[in-house]
């Protein structure tokens, strides 16, 4: 049988501690209640896969930075290399030649062909047989007029010199090409490594920012717990710091609170105290963070999102364990912190009952010290009068002492 109790239906509308703003006949009328219930059910049924994927990818990119493939990094490096090898300063044809030389293997220099060979008989050579015959026939006659041997020797030596020079030139070209290719390769790899390193550095800096945000949150959590402890502990008479009245006066004993609070003081003092505390803590906040506590350069709420639990719409993740180990406080701690007095006061009735008893123990040990306070100007402020001495708190309103009998 279906549960038709409107109260049950209304309870289902609570979401993360917030009530829907329904009032008057809306609460009483079953029609709107049912339709709203149906709407909520439909809302729960509705899942947007694309939205979930966007969230997942956003979380991954926040955690790991932007991932680039090797090819993308190479393309990025190639663009940087283009910028370095500016065509205005480097001859384009030379650049192209170097590129080609890197892409094609450098061939071993071919032995340059001899430009010519010169032997003793070279000057008499001809392809015509008859002419060759006459030259040989008349050769003694020619040698009668001059000696052709020095000419042959000189030309022969010159041919050998030419060949050696060509070899040297080819070898030099080969070495130069190798050096060029090597230099270009080194340059290319350097630029690639620089591109890769800069991307890594970017990712690491993002990671550092995310981690510092986490550290910051952890510190604030510790401070807020410390603050709760201090506020729960009744102020010694010699201390002048303002104490939020909500902490000192549990709500279940409002009569005694009214009786012990001086008129006019409670309105101004706590707010002043809250302002002071906010100023002081903001002063302690390290540089590089926004007033909301998010690190500079990181989207506000990015780190907050990680601290949320499953109700916040994000899946609990293995990496988020350190965030969730802090306790049941899954809300936005930054907001809770900045709203200092009231948020602490809301939390106080839950925590202070346990903590206060421990504080009582400590205070009783420290009692001799506080029994004779040194009066100061600050002690005369009205703030101290808003807090009743521990002895004045009725026995019934005291929290049970977990350590006592």
């Amino acid at each position: 049988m279906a549960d038709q109790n409107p109260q049950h239906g209304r309870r289902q509308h609570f979401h993360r501690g917030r009530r829907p703003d329904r009032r008057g006949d809306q609460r009483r009328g079953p029609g709107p209640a049912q339709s709203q219930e149906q709407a909520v059910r439909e809302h729960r049924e509705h899942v947007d896969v694309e939205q979930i994927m966007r969230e997942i990818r956003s979380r991954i990119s926040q955690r790991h930075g932007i991932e680039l493939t090797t090819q993308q990094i190479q393309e990025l490096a190639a663009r940087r290399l283009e910028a370095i090898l500016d065509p205005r300063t480097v001859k384009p044809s030379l650049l192209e030649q170097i590129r080609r030389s890197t892409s094609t293997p450098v061939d071993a220099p071919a032995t340059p062909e001899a430009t010519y060979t010169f032997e003793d008989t070279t000057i008499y050579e001809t392809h015509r047989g008859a002419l060759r015959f006459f030259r040989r026939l008349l050769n003694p006659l020619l040698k009668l007029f001059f000696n052709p041997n020095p000419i042959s020797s000189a030309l022969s030596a010159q041919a050998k010199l030419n060949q050696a020079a060509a070899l040297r030139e080819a070898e030099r070209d080969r070495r130069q090409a190798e050096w060029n290719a090597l230099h270009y390769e080194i340059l290319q790899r350097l630029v690639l490594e620089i591109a890769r390193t800069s991307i890594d550095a970017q990712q690491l800096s993002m990671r550092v920012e995310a981690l510092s945000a986490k550290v910051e949150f952890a510190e604030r959590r510790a401070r807020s717990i410390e603050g709760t402890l201090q506020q729960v502990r009744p102020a010694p008479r010699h201390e002048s710091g303002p104490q939020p009245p909500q902490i000192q006066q549990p709500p279940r004993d409002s009569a005694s609170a009214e009786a012990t609070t001086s008129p006019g003081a409670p309105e101004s003092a706590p707010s002043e105290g809250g302002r002071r505390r906010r100023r002081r803590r903001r002063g302690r906040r390290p540089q590089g963070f926004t007033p909301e506590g998010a690190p500079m350069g990181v989207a506000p709420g990015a780190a907050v999102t990680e601290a949320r639990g499953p109700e916040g719409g994000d899946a609990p993740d293995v990496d988020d364990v350190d965030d969730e180990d802090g306790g049941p406080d899954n809300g936005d701690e930054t907001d809770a912190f900045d709203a200092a007095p009231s948020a602490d006061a809301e939390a106080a009735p839950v925590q202070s009952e346990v903590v206060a008893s421990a504080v009582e123990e400590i205070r009783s040990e420290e009692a001799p010290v506080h029994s004779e306070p040194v009066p100061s100007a600050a002690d005369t402020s009205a703030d101290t009068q808003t807090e009743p001495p521990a002895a004045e708190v009725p026995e019934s309103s005291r929290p049970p002492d977990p350590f006592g009998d």
Partner: protein
Amino acid sequence: MKLVFVVQRYGAEINGGGELHARYVAERLAAHADVRVLTTCARDYVTWRNEWPPGEDRVNGIPVERFAVAHERNLIDFRERSDRIFRDPHSVQEEFRWLDSQGPTSPTLIKRLARVADECDFVVLFSIRYGPAFYGARFAASKAVLVPTAEREASLGLSILQPVFRGVRAIMYNTFEERAMITALSSNEHVPGVVVGVGSQIPDTVDVERARRTFGLDNPYIIYVGRIDSNKGCADLFRHFTEYTDGASRPLDLVLIGTPVLPIPSHPRIKHLGFVADRDKFDAIAGAELLVMPSPYESLSMVALEAWALGRPVLASARCDVLVGQCVRSNAGLYYEDAREFAAALDRILADPALAATLGRNGRAFYARHYSWPVIERKYLDMFEQLRGEPAEYGMEPIPGWLARRTTTVPPAAVVVNALPTGPVVGTERSESR
């Protein structure tokens, strides 16, 4: 109404996507029409060896005519021709030769089809990349209803396919992505078409405990069903899963159902069940946390539909537009591109049972809305009625002449496919389904 189905293979034990699709549709439409199937004698899609005797047969009550395949596939020749037409500019004649090399080639089947086409109302042809559907569509164009089962692969870029897409009477698409791809490829807006897909034979009841007992599935598990092949993305799946389990604290197994082509890594959390009966398969899917579908090439993925029909979410590869589109349209699955997204999406579903349940419910509703048999049968019958009422105002373009066929003017098929628009088609289905 008389219908002739043409498909490259047909048999009760054949589980290939297009063939199973054809059998399911034929068996369902047999309740509304006189259905006859023309197919080959081949059983193996790699060799196309003639394993069934040619002649009349009957499969689950459907009359089947089998025709011999002219030749088996020569793998070396096929690979060389594929390399040529996928990567290089080529001629139309080379594409015809590639089609012949791929197989199955059965001239007797086409001759028979040309005869029976006059006697039937419509010819329903499955899988355009194979000879029977391609030549069948050309020989019986005026009655051809094509079920392309086309994937985003290079063979779709063959120039000889485009006139077929423009010349058949109607096209029954599997998904909106397939429709968008074929329309962009061939500009066939004038051809009547509808996105149909195919249903499955989902049992009325499943017994998860029986599957757990039978296969010893003690831990929570995710499941993959299909051929265990690197072409199906299984290598990536193994890598992603082992990375995930190395860093995760929750016990989670990967259960594999299907024939292994790829060596399965020896890992304590990977369990291979082999080829199992349909009943066991459905039981195992129903007991899984989700079905994982890593394949980058899918024209529909019947397994994903089966998982949705059983109320299980799907985790699909984002490299497959069809799967992404199906996940988005159904709101019943997540998708991943790499190991990190795999882990994050898996965590998201496993850590949030409410989300998993909602995805499963959405999947069940999606299946019922679009892939239940009454819906599919109605779409086929409506299309036949529409085609009966309106005569074809266009015909099949003729094959180019002798010289034109031999001129190297056709761009590489892979280049053609790569130029097609990518991404899931989302808005169309949402607007149509609402």
